[in-house]
């Protein structure tokens, strides 16, 4: 019973958050780009209640955009495949939402021991375990592999949209999206192999546990971190990897023929992808919900001759973990948006070259080096 209630609650919270995140990130992106380009940014949309004028630093623009999207004429191309045309936006956004199902956004909550100090025995005690809620919607054994499988499905949406629109620009955009995403998935997957070898697991919660006990993944796999971040940005199809959209040559690429809410689904799908990829990078490389030097029992700092142990109650640790995870994600989203407004767009052939001739060999080399080092370390131990 607890399982069903907690899972429903988690799904509602996570999906509810991701549904809003597009509106929020739209505002963030506009304001952030305005700030770095020495502009004020959008601030004219106003809600008037009597003499009260609410502008909320431009947040109202997101609401105005939503209203505009709803009332746009839902125009469809007369040619093409109508079923696929309507299916494509859904196929594009659903995988992005599914991805967050396996991401752990906090340590496991033991409901009976909120005020107690963490005891490793809880994790093995059946009675306690039955009254525990992992802060992760689905704890799958295949973890990372699930993410690759679902992220791979995202390409179908873009390809379908390009194909079914009966427009040459759309088709070109769809083709580009398909080839780009498939190319970068290879590098993305291979860049994580090194991390999986070190963590000895593909389960995301165990990855976080490993990083809590040893050190963050970015320190043991710096090359993989750079490769993965690059590939993740490429997967979101945003600048500097936005050739599928290709404003200057393809109008709007694969969603040229989409209007109103269907277009909004593609656009918000992009933001959800940014959000989810940030959460993924956090989980795999930045220690997930771990605040530096914080263990499940509280602050443990045993370096530089210092020996600090500051024990916290279980619920404090959980709260700190959840907030830390959110902040890390927010930081990565911020950096991704910053990259989007800093770098110029790659040419299409440059994207392919970068993917196949730089990222892929680098990822393979990373696997080789990691494997060799691990072999030496293990043989030393044995």
């Amino acid at each position, binding site marked *: 019973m607890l399982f069903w209630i907690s899972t429903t609650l988690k799904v509602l919270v996570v999906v509810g958050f991701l549904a809003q995140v597009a509106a929020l990130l739209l505002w963030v992106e506009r304001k*952030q780009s*305005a*700030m*770095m*380009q*020495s*502009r*004020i940014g959008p601030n004219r949309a106003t809600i008037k209640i009597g003499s009260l004028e609410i502008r909320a630093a431009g947040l109202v623009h997101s609401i105005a955009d939503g209203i505009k999207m709803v009332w746009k004429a839902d125009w469809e191309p007369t040619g093409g495949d109508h079923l696929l045309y309507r299916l494509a936006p859904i196929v594009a956004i659903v995988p992005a939402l599914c991805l967050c199902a396996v991401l752990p956004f906090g340590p496991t909550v033991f409901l009976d021991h909120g005020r107690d100090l963490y005891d490793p025995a809880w994790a093995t005690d059946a009675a306690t375990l039955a009254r525990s809620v992992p802060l992760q919607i689905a704890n799958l054994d295949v973890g990372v592999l699930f993410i690759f499988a679902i992220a791979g499905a995202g390409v179908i949406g873009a390809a379908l949209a390009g194909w079914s629109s009966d427009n040459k620009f759309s088709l070109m955009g769809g083709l580009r999206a398909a080839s780009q995403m498939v190319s970068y998935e290879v590098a993305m997957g291979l860049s994580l192999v090194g991390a999986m070898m070190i963590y000895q697991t593909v389960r995301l919660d165990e990855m976080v546990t490993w990083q809590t006990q040893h050190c963050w993944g970015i320190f043991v796999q710096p090359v993989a971190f*750079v490769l993965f971040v690059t590939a993740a940005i490429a997967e979101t199809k945003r600048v500097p990897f936005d050739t599928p959209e290709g404003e200057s040559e393809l109008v709007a690429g694969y969603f040229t023929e989409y209007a109103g809410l269907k277009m909004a689904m593609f656009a918000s799908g992009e933001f959800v992808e940014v959000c989810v990829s940030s959460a993924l990078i956090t989980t795999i490389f930045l220690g997930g919900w771990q605040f530096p030097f914080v263990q499940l029992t509280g602050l443990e700092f045993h370096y530089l001759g210092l020996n600090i142990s500051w024990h916290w109650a279980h619920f404090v640790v959980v709260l700190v973990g959840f907030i830390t995870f959110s902040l890390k994600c927010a930081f990565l989203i911020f*950096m991704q948006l*910053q*990259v989007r*407004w*800093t*770098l110029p767009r790659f040419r299409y052939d440059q994207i392919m070259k970068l993917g196949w001739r730089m990222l892929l060999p680098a990822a393979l080399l990373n696997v080789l080096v990691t494997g060799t080092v691990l072999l030496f370390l293990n043989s030393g131990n044995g």
Partner: protein
Amino acid sequence: MPGKTKVLKKPTRTLADQSYLIEVVKGLGTTLKHFFQGTGQMVSGNVPNAVTDPLAEGISTLSYPEEKRAYSERWRGVHRLTHRDDGSPRCVACLCCSTACPAQCIYIKPGEYPEGDKRRGYERYPVEFVIDELRCIFCGFCVEACPCDAIRMDTGTHMTAFDVKSDFVYDKDKLMSMVSQHGTQKSENPRHEPGDPGHPGIDRLHGGH
């Protein structure tokens, strides 16, 4: 004798440039610097005044139309017809402006003052004075051509956007209602009415020559 040839060294890309990564970090550094500068100004409220200090570091957005920069005195805006002291137009309907106009956007229908008016015989007045502001190229020739300082472009205002083309055709009343940048409807140049001490007293019927 041919001049000395200076051979420019072709810029080479270092491995650091080629790897792209360092340059990306540098670029992010630049944009982040500007981001924090802009955000700092917005949060602390120290946004430079775009009207008085347009070249200041940081946010330089001008919130038009609430904020406007003053145009220079010689900036050519929408026309106006200057007034005499009695409120009638200074224009004497000599047609100099419409003759000088390269866009042919000025139409004037001259009229004689009625019998007994002290100005009759000396000058005429515009029955109609129409400027098609859409045809106007804002060259200012009309202002240069005018012998009476009757037409000026010192209003400091842009052409307003209207829905209908006919709204862009300014008639005499509309042109007379415009004010200069400094709020006056007159001209600072003196004008002598017929009968005034400084008036030459020459007219078409009683020429001095």
